[in-house]
């Protein structure tokens, strides 16, 4: 039976995992995602799930187990954060290259050095070229909804690509909220039976997984891999619509908040979007025509749709919770600025890196950005394209 429960982000992901009951869960604990693994282990100990629960010696091994189990023909999940995801790095590419629909909950946390356990997007942004689909969540409810949809998206026969679902460390993973947990049977029927593709355990058909490619085949196989993620936008849309029809919460590539008549806009992902919406409400009541766009899907990047949504805005600020040292702006900014390049009418655009290592972002900081955008919209001049928010300077 569906019920509203008071859960934090980690418990929410574990609850979704309990309902999905994957064939294999392989994970290694790391702050702030530890409680996901702990709670699933408890479910296993209590006989509430039938999943094979594997505790390997590292995250590299955890992802390796996921790859092996998925190649064998199982529905597979893991969870990690920060250094854990970094340690999985070479295996992430292998999961994607072998087209294995592993699902990972990533509780976003800063990367060392200096060592820091708090939330930012450095970890998943570092994995952005690994070939995984990336979906980001604003709150516990979205983390739950995204995690369930991730299985349907990744496992679709036209996609067969691993999916990671991001939720901000501590801000979401450790903050309790009311979350609507759907009925177990309804979730299971939404997910459906897992359909293995050429499973290794089917001994009637002998195949080789992961043979070497030389100069004559690697390129073609990589192009074939790219097709999987390029097929995914249609599937992401279908699954988001079907999820909405079944459970009442509809999902697309991004959310637009008070964008209809906006002259300026702030683009921000994940938990900070919640704070941003409060700021937009206050700014609107002060008479400013400002809106917010919250990307949900970062890979595949919905470049056309975002460009269409932003092209008529006068000034846009993209807020990134990760830096890309030496690049022309942080990851979300470079995607959006590039997406707008072909449009004759396009906004002035600036980038702010914020919240590294869990640094707070408050309504006041959004107002600071709004004031700068207002000035850019009025003068048409960008004085500082790349900046930092709430940094002691």
């Amino acid at each position, binding site marked *: 039976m569906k019920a509203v429960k008071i859960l934090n982000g980690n418990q929410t992901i574990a609850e979704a995992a309990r309902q999905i009951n994957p064939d294999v869960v392989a994970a290694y604990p790391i702050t702030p995602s530890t409680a996901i693994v702990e709670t699933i282990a408890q479910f296993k100990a209590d006989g509430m799930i039938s999943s094979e629960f594997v505790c390997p010696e590292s995250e590299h091994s955890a992802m390796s187990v996921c790859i092996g189990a998925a190649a064998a023909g199982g529905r597979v999940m893991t969870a990690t954060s920060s250094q854990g995801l970094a340690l999985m790095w070479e295996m992430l590419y292998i999961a994607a290259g072998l*087209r294995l629909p592993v699902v990972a909950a990533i509780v976003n946390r800063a990367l060392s050095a200096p060592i820091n356990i708090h939330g930012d997007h450095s970890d998943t942004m570092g994995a952005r070229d690994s070939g995984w689909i990336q979906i980001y969540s604003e709150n516990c409810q979205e983390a739950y909804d995204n995690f369930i949809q991730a299985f349907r998206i990744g496992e679709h026969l036209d996609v067969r690509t691993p999916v990671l679902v991001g939720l901000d460390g501590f801000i979401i993973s450790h903050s309790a909220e009311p979350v609507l947990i759907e009925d177990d049977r309804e979730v299971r029927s939404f997910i459906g039976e897992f359909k293995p*593709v*050429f499973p290794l355990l089917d001994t009637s058909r002998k*195949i080789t997984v992961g043979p070497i*490619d030389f100069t004559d085949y690697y390129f073609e*196989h990589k192009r074939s*891999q790219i097709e999987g993620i390029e097929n995914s936008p249609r599937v992401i849309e279908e699954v988001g619509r079907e999820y909405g029809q079944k459970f009442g919460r509809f999902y697309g590539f991004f959310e637009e908040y008070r964008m209809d008549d906006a002259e300026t806009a702030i683009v921000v992902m994940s938990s900070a979007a919640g704070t941003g919406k409060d700021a937009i409400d206050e700014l609107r009541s002060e008479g400013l025509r400002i809106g917010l766009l919250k990307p949900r899907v970062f890979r595949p990047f919905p470049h056309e749709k975002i460009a269409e949504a932003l092209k008529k805005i006068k000034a846009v600020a993209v807020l990134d919770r990760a830096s890309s040292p030496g690049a022309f702006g942080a990851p979300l900014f470079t995607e959006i600025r590039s997406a707008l390049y072909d449009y004759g009418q396009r906004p002035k655009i600036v980038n702010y890196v914020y919240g590294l290592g869990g640094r707070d972002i408050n309504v006041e900081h959004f107002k600071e950005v709004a004031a700068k955008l207002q000035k850019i919209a009025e003068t048409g001049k960008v004085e500082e394209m790349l900046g930092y928010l709430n940094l002691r300077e």
Partner: protein
Amino acid sequence: MKKETWTELAIGALNLQAGNSVSNLTGTWRSGRKPEFIEDNCIQCFFCWLYCPHFAVRVEEGKVTGFNYDYCTGCGLCAEECPTKEKAIVMVKEETKIIEEGKK
């Protein structure tokens, strides 16, 4: 052999033809030398068969009888490992043939 385009390949770079390495004639890699079998010196220890990386040691009715040069790369491991005082395998010079791709 015509190579597949990217749309013709199996998902996930899988190899769906088990055992298709027989079609890869590694003997074409051989350059300048090849092993020669001296049957009189052979004690049938099977070291050469065990060490050969390309399964190119020919075994007939339980006995080593020579090499399958379609797969022998001329690496010399067999001659190196041959334990008899008077070697049963020696490396000899071979004129390198230029082999066109796709032909034996």
